[in-house]
Every structure is written in C-alpha cells, then in structure tokens.
C-alpha cells in the first residue's frame, strides 16, 4: 500500500514540475484541456458507475460555463463568486430533475431519457436567449482590464496547467473517498435492487440525490473552468447532447469502474479530436462524433470495462 502512495506522490510531483521544464505552449494547451475534461468525465463517472447514466451532464456543464460568464459580463461579478453561484444553480437544477425521478422510481432507460431532455432544454434556453448569451454563435467573457486574479483570467499556460491539475487531483480524491465510503455499498446495492437496499435501511432517494448532487456540482465547476480557460464558449462545446454523449463515450472507453479511467478517456478523446482537426482540417468537422459513436458500440460489446479497467483486470489475474 505504501509503495502505491509513493508512486502517486512521485507521479504528482512530476506533473507539478512539468510546466517548469517543458514550455511548448501547444502541448501544454492540450494537457490543460485533457485535465479539465478528465475532471468533467470523472464527475460524470461518480454517478455513472452506479448505473445512473445521465445524458444531462452537458446541461450542468453549460450552466457552469454560462452562469459564470454572464454574471461577469453583465453584473461584473468575479468568477470567484460566479463559479460557486453557477455550481449552486446546477445543483438546484439537478435536484429539481432528479428528485421526481428518484421519488417515483424512474430508472434505467427512462432516467436516461429524462436527463437527455435536460441537456436539450439547457441548449434551447442558451440559444433562445441569444440577446444575452450570443446564442449558437458563442459567447466570450469580457477581457479584464484590472486584476487578473480577481477576473480569473491568466495569459500564461503554466498557471492554467497548475489550476487544472489541482482540480483534477481534487476530482480523483473525491472519487476515491466515495469509493471507500459506505455510500459506495449503498449505491451498489441500490443499482442492483432498490427494494432490497431499502430493506437494509438505506434511504434510497436520499443516497441517489446525494451522489447526483456531487456529480452535478463538479460538472458545473468543469464547465466554468473551461470557460475561463478558453475565454470562448458555445452551446456545442460546453453544453447540449453532443457534450453529454462525449462524456459517456470517454468514460466507457477509459474505464467506468477505475479512478483513472475517465482520465484515460479524456486523453483518447482529445488526441482523437485534435488529430482529426490537424489531419483533415475543416473537412473533418463532426467526424470525431462519428468515430465516438462507432467506438462506443465496439467498446460496449467487446471491452465493457474500458481500456484501463481491462488492463488492470489482466494484471490482477497474472498476480493471482
């Protein structure tokens, strides 16, 4: 166990040191994107791993990004306040949608459909209020003229890399904390048999709401960070059904039941999208979604535990 912690510590130290020795901006940019999306995917997997498959997380991400940006542009509210507000907004939205679902036992495919509608609704609201949000053309937070820290706007990649790294680590810590808590027992039990879980004394609705709330809050934070880093958001990149599907795809490819699975998924999706963009340019717009779809089907059939999950399983067999 100690050697495992040592490996984590060394790996983390190396990741912290990286931007100080390696300064190639494009590669650092890719790493920041990978870290932010890894965090978003980890957030999704916190509920997804218990069979709560949500296609509404694009909605939470959109709320995180747009609420933060709108508060800054229209009311001059610093993202330091705007981000928590956007997270609360996403949390309230999650509870409003999830409570009736859980209370009235909407599970499985029907739950997926309800969350799918949530993604669609958030996307529609963003496009419909185009006077404020810029609609489908996208939206840019105003450049700060004063204190960069107050505006949470940084020009150098190193700062962003360290912020993204910190948030990513926090996401993994939360994942592990849940994995080791009694909540995991309760959620595994609920995902198998809600009545039997209730007969063991579990408050099924409350446990599901708790895990959904944590997941939604984290996803909104990911959206807000993405907005602050890219300084440009559009419904296609941080919201909507495509983003939700991309989360499902990345997590399943990486591995749903292992802490670093979503991170592996983020590395693959971002490298895939970037290589398509560089290799084929504008001809390949939208191709990544096509590739995601085909790969998703193949993975669900042939490698349901994902890349990392399957590798770890093989290693375990060899040891045993």
């Amino acid at each position, binding site marked *: 166990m100690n050697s495992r912690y040592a490996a984590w510590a060394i790996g983390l130290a190396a990741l912290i040191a990286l931007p100080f020795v390696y300064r190639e901006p494009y590669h650092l940019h890719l790493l920041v994107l990978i870290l932010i999306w890894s965090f978003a995917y980890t957030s999704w997997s916190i509920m997804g791993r218990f069979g709560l498959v949500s296609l509404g997380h694009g909605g939470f991400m959109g709320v995180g990004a747009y609420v933060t940006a709108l508060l800054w542009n229209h009311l001059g509210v610093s993202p330091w306040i705007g981000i928590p507000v956007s997270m609360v907004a996403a949390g309230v939205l999650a509870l409003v949608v999830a409570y009736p679902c859980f209370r009235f036992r909407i599970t499985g495919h029907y739950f997926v459909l309800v969350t799918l509608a949530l993604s669609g609704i958030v996307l529609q609201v963003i496009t419909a209020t185009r006077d404020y949000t810029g609609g489908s053309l996208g939206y840019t937070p105003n450049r700060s003229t004063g204190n960069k820290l107050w505006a949470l706007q940084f020009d150098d990649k190193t700062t962003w890399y360290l912020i993204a790294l910190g948030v990513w680590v926090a996401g993994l810590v939360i994942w592990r904390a849940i994995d080791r808590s009694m909540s995991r027992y*309760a959620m595994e039990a609920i995902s198998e048999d809600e009545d039997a*879980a209730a007969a063991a004394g579990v408050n*099924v609705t409350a446990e599901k709401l708790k895990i959904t709330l944590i997941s939604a809050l984290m996803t909104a934070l990911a959206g807000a960070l993405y907005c602050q880093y890219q300084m440009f958001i559009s419904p296609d990149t941080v919201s909507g059904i495509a983003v939700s599907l991309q989360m499902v795809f990345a997590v399943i490819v990486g591995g749903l039941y292992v802490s670093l699975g979503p991170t592996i998924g983020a590395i693959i999706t971002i490298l895939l999208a970037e290589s398509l963009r560089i290799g084929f340019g504008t001809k390949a717009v939208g191709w990544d979604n096509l590739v995601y779809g085909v790969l998703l089907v193949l993975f669900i059939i042939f490698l349901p535990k994902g890349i990392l999950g399957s590798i770890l399983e093989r290693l375990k067999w060899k040891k045993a």
Partner: protein
Amino acid sequence: MLAVNGLVKRFGGFTAVSNVSFKVEKGEILGLIGPNGSGKSTIFNMLSGTLVPTAGSISFDGHEIAGHAPHRIINGGIGRTFQIPRPFHRLTMFENVALAGFYGQGRHSRKKADEAAEKALAMVGLPTDRHAGVDGLGAAGLKKLELAKALATGPKLLLADESLGGLDEQEMDQAADMLRNIRDELGITIIWVEHIMGVLMRVVDRVMVLDHGEKISEGLPAAVAADPRVIEVYLGTDADATQAAAGEARRRAGN
C-alpha cells in the same frame, strides 16, 4: 408490540388483503400461513413499508407506521427478509451484511456496522471472512445471508419471509431451529411466513391462516391445524397431510 387493525390492500379491482387485524406480543413467534396468493407477502410488504396500505393502521411500539418509507421502518426496529433471497452480487458477503448494519442502525460508525455484521453472520452460521463473495452460496446459504442482513439492522421485530421450498428436510429443520434460537438468544419477536405447515408448527407459539386475503383462523398450532375451516378452505386437497401435521402438533403439545 405490533397491532394491525383493518389492514386492506387493493391493486386496481383486486383485493389482495381484506380487513386483516392481528396482534403480536413481545417475544413470541407468530406463524403466518396460507396458500400462494393468499396475501402473506403483501402483508409483509405493508409492514415493512415496501407497499402503502389502502386502508387500516399498523402500530409498532405505540407508533403508527402505516405508509412510512421502508428505511424509516427498518431504522425503527423492524427487520425483514425476502421470500426469494436478494443478495447484492457486486458486494462481498461481509459487505452485504455490513451495509445493513450501517444503514439499518442509524448510520453510526463503520466499526459498529462491522461488529453488527460479524455478530449477524456468526448467528446464522456463515463465515465472517471479509473477502468471500455471494456467488458461491447455495440456496441454504443465500437464505442464511438474507437472515443475517435482516439481523444486522438490529430489529426488535423480525419479518421472516422464509418459504423453505428450495431446501431439503434437514436444512428446513435447521432453518426452523435458527429462528427459534434468534428469538431465545436475542429476544427478537418474529413473524414467520411459510407454505409448509409441519416445520412451522413445530416452532411457532401461535399461527394465523390467510386465504384470499382474509384471516380465516388464528390460535395455537394444534387448534389451528384441527380447525375444519383451515382443513377445508386452505388445505382442502391435502387433508391427509394436514391431519398428520395436526397430530404431530398435538403430540408435541402433549409432551
């Protein structure tokens, strides 16, 4: 300890339980029998909160619990097993029981949950080893696990939906003895649902018989087994077996 009054459950036009009233005294084992579809499990599901009664009251330790959420009822001191064991396959055997020990007793601490799990597993005679899974368990083992989960929630009243159909005779006797031990050693009051009369009659203090959702007889095992209504309505075609069970019960009562 438990007082049920005028309990009714309708599913659409079908009345599964019709105006059933009964009482359970502290420390007794009440047997609940009746043919398939007579409403035994429906009554259990209402007592444990899985179903909301259409009408009637359920008073446990002086508190009205009809229609409360299952987790509240479980935390209030009622434990239940399911007729068909419902283990959680993604958890180990120990985790299955520790879960019940944690959530069934007000979520105190992990240590307490583990202690409750160890105690419950030992009581039913399952290994307390932390790594054993549930997939290797046979029918008898799964029933024991089901019982251990219910015990770990720390019940004052245990609703044992046993239906020992899948077990051989020796296993049935063991299961019956186990219920009696649970009452004698832990002081837990028990309502025991069963199809097979003989095994049940040997252990219970009183029996209640249901047919088509109605209570048709209630009393001491010997008296109930000899009740012509029970023989005629409930066991009609199986009169010989019933008579044998009645004789058995009388003989034991005489001892």
